[in-house]
C-alpha cells in the first residue's frame, strides 16, 4: 500500500517536473533572446542535485541498511555441519545394514520416549527385517480388536499391517512422564527440521560435557548448542556401547547416532530407493528417446543435406544477346 501510494506520488512529481520542463522549454523558446544561465548557478544546481542524490542514498541506508537480528545466535542455535551422507548421493541407496542397526537403536533407546506412529510393521519387510522377524515383532504387541457381538473390544496380537505402538497412551501421559516436555513423533522428523539428517546427528552427538562458561541452562533442561535456544528437555541418550550390534559393529556414540539418523531418514522417506531407481529409469528412457530423435532427424534431413543445387547455364546457341 505504502509503496504504491509512494510510487504514485513520485509519478505525480515526475509529471509535474515534465510539465515544468515543457513550460520551461516553451518559455525558453519564446524568450530566446534573454540572458544565458550563469556558470555559477549551473554549478550550484549540479552540486545540489549531487548532494541530494548522495543524501537519499545515505537516508535509505539509514532506514533499511542494517539488518535487524531479532534473535541472538544462541536463540537461533548452532547451524548443523553438513556431513557427507552416502545415502543422500544421487545414485546411492540406503545402507540397509545401517538401517537395521538404526532400527535396533530406535527400539532399544528412543522407543522408550518417542513414537514412530506412521511406520507399519509391513514397511520393514524386505527393507530391514525378514517377514518372519517382522511378524514376530508385531505379535509382541497387543492391539484392540473390532467390537465383538456383545460390543466388547478385546485384545489381539499385532499383525504386519499394524503400526508401531507408541510408548505413551497420549500426549498428556508423555508430557507427564517427561517433566512437561513432549517427545515428538519421529516418523517425519528428518523432514520436519531444518538441516534434516545433519541436525539430528548433531543434536544426538552434540551434548558437551559441560555448558560453556556463563551459559544459562533452565531448570530441567540440558545444554545442546544445536537446539534453538540451546536448552533441550531431552538429556543426552546415546553413550558408547549402549547397544550391542548384532553385526558386531562397534557401538560408539557417533556410530549409533549415524545409524539411527539414517533409519529415521528411511522412516520419513521409505520411497527413496525406489524414487532414485525410477529417476534412473527416466534418464535411461529419455536418453534412448533423445538418441532416437537424433537419428530420425538425420534420416529426415538426409535428402536436404545431401542435395546439390547446380546451376546449369543455358547453352550459348539458345541465348539471344541484344547489344
Amino acid at each position: 500500500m505504502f509503496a504504491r501510494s509512494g510510487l504514485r506520488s513520485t509519478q505525480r512529481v515526475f509529471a509535474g517536473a515534465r510539465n515544468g520542463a515543457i513550460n520551461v522549454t516553451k518559455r525558453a523558446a519564446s524568450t530566446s533572446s534573454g540572458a544565458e544561465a550563469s556558470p555559477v548557478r549551473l554549478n550550484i544546481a549540479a552540486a545540489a542535485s549531487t548532494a541530494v542524490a548522495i543524501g537519499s542514498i545515505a537516508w535509505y541506508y539509514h532506514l533499511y541498511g542494517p539488518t535487524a537480528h531479532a534473535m541472538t545466535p544462541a536463540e537461533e542455535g548452532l547451524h548443523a555441519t553438513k556431513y557427507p551422507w552416502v545415502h543422500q548421493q544421487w545414485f546411492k541407496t540406503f545402507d540397509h545394514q545401517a538401517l537395521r542397526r538404526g532400527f535396533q537403536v530406535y527400539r532399544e533407546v528412543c522407543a522408550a520416549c518417542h513414537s514412530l506412529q506412521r511406520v507399519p510393521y509391513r514397511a520393514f519387510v524386505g527393507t530391514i527385517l525378514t517377514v518372519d522377524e517382522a511378524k514376530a515383532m508385531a505379535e509382541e504387541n497387543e492391539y484392540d480388536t473390532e467390537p465383538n457381538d456383545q460390543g466388547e473390544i478385546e485384545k489381539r496380537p499385532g499383525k504386519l499391517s499394524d503400526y508401531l505402538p507408541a510408548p505413551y497412551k497420549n500426549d498428556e501421559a508423555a508430557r507427564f512422564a517427561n517433566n512437561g516436555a513432549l517427545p515428538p513423533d519421529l516418523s517425519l522428523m528428518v523432514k520436519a527440521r531444518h538441516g534434516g539428517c545433519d541436525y539430528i546427528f548433531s543434536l544426538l552427538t552434540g551434548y558437551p560435557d559441560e555448558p560453556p562458561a556463563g551459559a544459562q541452562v533452565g531448570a530441567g533442561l540440558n545444554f545442546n548448542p544445536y537446539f534453538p535456544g540451546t536448552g533441550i528437555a531431552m538429556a543426552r541418550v546415546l553413550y558408547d556401547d549402549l547397544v550391542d550390534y548384532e553385526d558386531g559393529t562397534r557401538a560408539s556414540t557417533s556410530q549409533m547416532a549415524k545409524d539411527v539418523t539414517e533409519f529415521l531418514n528411511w522412516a520419513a522417506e521409505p520411497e527413496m530407493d525406489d524414487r532414485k531407481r525410477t529417476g534412473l529409469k527416466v534418464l535411461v528412457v529419455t536418453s534412448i528417446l533423445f538418441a532416437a530423435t537424433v537419428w530420425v532427424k538425420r534420416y529426415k534431413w538426409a535428402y536436404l543435406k545431401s542435395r546439390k543445387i547446380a546451376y546449369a547455364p543455358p547453352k550459348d546457341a539458345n541465348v539471344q544477346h541484344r547489344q
Partner: protein
Amino acid sequence: MGFWDTITDLVDAATPWSTAEAEHPDSHKSPQGDAPLGGNAPAAPAKEISDETTAETDKEEKAEDETAEVKKNEEPAEEEEAEEEPEEEEEEEEEEQDPKDKFEDDCKNSKQCAPAKHHYDECVERVTSQESEGGAKEDCVEEFFHLAHCATQCAAPKLWSTLK
C-alpha cells in the same frame, strides 16, 4: 500367474545379470525373542537387568524401565553394573574413545581452529573471573559456537571415513 508374470519371467530368464539376494540374518537371532520391542538384541550387561523386568507387557512400565536404563548409563558407578561387568570390559571402554570426540579434539587443537579456540579460551577465562567476582556479565555461547562449528566442519570427513 497372469500374462504379465509370464513376460517378467521370460525377461528374468533372458537377462544376463543375476538378482542380488540379501544374506539371511537369522543366524544372529538372540535367545530372548520374547521381550517386547527390545527383544531382538543380544543381552548387554545393562540390558539383562531390564530384560528381567520387561516380562510384564505394560508398555508404560517398560518405557520407564528403559528410561531408567538410559539414565543408568549416565553414571558408570552404578552398583549393579559394577557387580556384573567384568573388569576388562570397562578398561576397553576407556581405551576406545568415540571417534567423533577424538577427531574434534584434534581439530580444536589444530592450526585451523586456533583463532576460534583462542577466543573461546580467553572468554572462558574472562567469564570465570567475573563469576568469582560476583556475577558473569556475559556468556561464551557464541565463542563456543564458533569453535564447535570449526571443529565439526574439520572432523566431518574424517569421521565419515571411520564410521560404517
